[in-house]
């Protein structure tokens, strides 16, 4: 029997369509159909200046938006050879890691919902709400932040930032313990997920699975460790891995990752010192407002940057980063103009979605719904 799942259904976590062939309740074949959210961001970026592109990068993965912003600005900064101040780097790390926790909280909330557990959703959303307040205080919005800029940040964080983050970080590990007992240690959940939809290590490598899903299959790939960026080498943290490769392992890795992210945020907060948040280089950053009143040169720089943007030298760059879903990198090509010649987003969700097919075949249809959730795809990230 052939069943059509989606594209508009809560269990597909976005607009994902699956054509599933069933033999009884067993899955014989599964074909994902994507593209319903294709927006052409990469093409649009070819017609915007480098700073304007930050508006588009965070709209792809709306759950871990800061990671997309970071990946994009890192690539352009490498092209420009920009020097990002330490404070800006620390704030970037704090926000990206908090956003990673927020993304994993959505993963747990909605994933449990797919299994019929309603309560965890409310707990996870309650925690996430605190993070949303922090992001709102920093950037003014709860989604699509666009707060990072090439060369630093849009502006310094408000005074309330540090106490807000500290309060949240102090409370979270205690809550996480409760959640662990509520769902991860729950024997019903274990029975439902252990040994189900296994992705072996070979399969993960063959299908280029990255991120927490790959680490659950014994592939120790984490770019925060392998190719540190934004000062990740200064923080002490572990990369949780599992060997089993089943749904429970994918959940367990993410659960531990939230606590590791907490550790990183705490260390970054302790090291956070006052200072500039933008590269002082006038080629990249806008001059401060007060200079515009008495410096003709500043007005000229301001005018040129706003109307035309900066011109990176010719070249091609790629900086791999670690998003909540896996390897995320922007391949940016400059032809010397003020707009990118070509931007290619290596979005983790697209490659990760391919593992859905081999891991679901032979399993039950009801398990497939949890399996989709366990790879944590964001369809905006798949379709770009």
């Amino acid at each position, binding site marked *: 029997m052939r069943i059509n799942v989606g594209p508009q259904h809560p269990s597909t976590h976005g607009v994902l369509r699956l054509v599933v062939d069933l033999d009884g309740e067993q899955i014989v074949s599964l074909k994902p159909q*994507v*593209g319903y959210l*294709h927006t*052409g961001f*990469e*093409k649009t970026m070819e*017609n915007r200046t480098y700073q304007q592109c930050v508006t588009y990068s965070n709209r792809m993965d709306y759950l871990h938006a800061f990671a997309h912003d970071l990946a994009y600005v890192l690539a352009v900064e490498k092209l420009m050879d920009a020097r990002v101040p330490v404070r800006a780097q620390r704030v970037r790390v704090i926000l990206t890691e908090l956003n990673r926790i927020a993304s994993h909280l959505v993963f747990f909330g909605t994933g449990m919902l797919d299994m019929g557990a309603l309560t965890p959703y409310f707990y996870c959303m309650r925690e996430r709400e605190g993070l949303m307040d922090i992001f709102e205080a920093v950037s003014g919005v709860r989604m699509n932040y666009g707060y990072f800029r090439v060369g630093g940040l849009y502006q310094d964080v408000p005074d309330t930032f540090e106490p807000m983050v500290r309060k949240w970080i102090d409370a979270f590990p205690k809550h996480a313990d409760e959640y662990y007992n509520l769902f991860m240690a729950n024997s019903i959940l274990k029975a439902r997920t252990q040994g189900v939809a296994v992705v072996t290590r070979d399969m993960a*490598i*063959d*299908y*280029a*699975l*990255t991120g927490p899903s790959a680490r659950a299959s014994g*592939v*120790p*790939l*984490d*770019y925060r460790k*392998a*190719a540190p960026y934004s000062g990740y080498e200064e923080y002490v943290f572990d990369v949780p891995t599992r060997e089993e490769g089943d749904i429970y392992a994918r959940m367990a890795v993410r659960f531990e990752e939230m606590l590791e992210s907490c550790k990183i945020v705490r260390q970054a907060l302790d090291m956070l010192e006052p200072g500039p948040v933008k590269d002082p280089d006038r080629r990249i950053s806008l001059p401060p407002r007060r200079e515009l009143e008495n410096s003709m040169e500043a007005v000229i720089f301001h005018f040129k940057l706003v109307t035309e943007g900066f011109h990176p030298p010719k070249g*091609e*760059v*790629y900086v*791999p980063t670690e998003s909540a879903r896996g*390897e995320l*990198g922007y*391949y940016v*090509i400059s*032809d*010397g103009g003020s707009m990118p*010649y*070509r931007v*290619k987003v*290596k979005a983790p969700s*697209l*490659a990760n*979605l*391919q593992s859905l097919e*081999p891991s679901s075949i032979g399993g039950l249809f009801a398990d497939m719904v949890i399996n989709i959730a366990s790879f944590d795809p964001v369809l905006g990230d798949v*379709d*770009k």
Partner: protein
Amino acid sequence: MVNVTVPKARIVEALRACRAAGLEMLTDVFGIDYLTYPGHRGKRFVVVYNVHDVRGTDRLFVRVEVDDGESVPTATEVWRGADFLERETFDMLGIEFEGHPNLRKLLTPEDLDGHPHRKDFPLGETPTLFNDGRFLDPAAFRAGLTGRSQGLTGWMGGARRGVTSTEGTLPGDGRGKA
């Protein structure tokens, strides 16, 4: 960034060698159109294979140059995960992969002609279809801005085929006549 350019005929062999040498994961395949790149010599397209090892410390960009209309042997025999990635490249640039088991469009709608990431893809020129049957023709819309026409014109069916006339075409389209 380490780049290596490989002749088209030996790409599968090269990728197999990469995998055997420890660059075990193919994380991305994409194409670049150098049509308008200043000072570019050589063929129009480049297909890039982004391969790295399982720890993520070593990375290699394997590049193949192709001209318009040329096809590339598929990498799906080396990595099954190349499936979606090559389909995306085909969709975006129209580069065909020989021997690919299922080379269909991945992201764009089936009725879209052309490949968006080609540099000669017309921007803002796709007529937009509305629910009530009318559609927006970009050329007519621009004319409308200058006062010569209302812009919205035509009826369902002509949407993807383009418009032949912008003047009072079909019944019900009385907006421009008042």
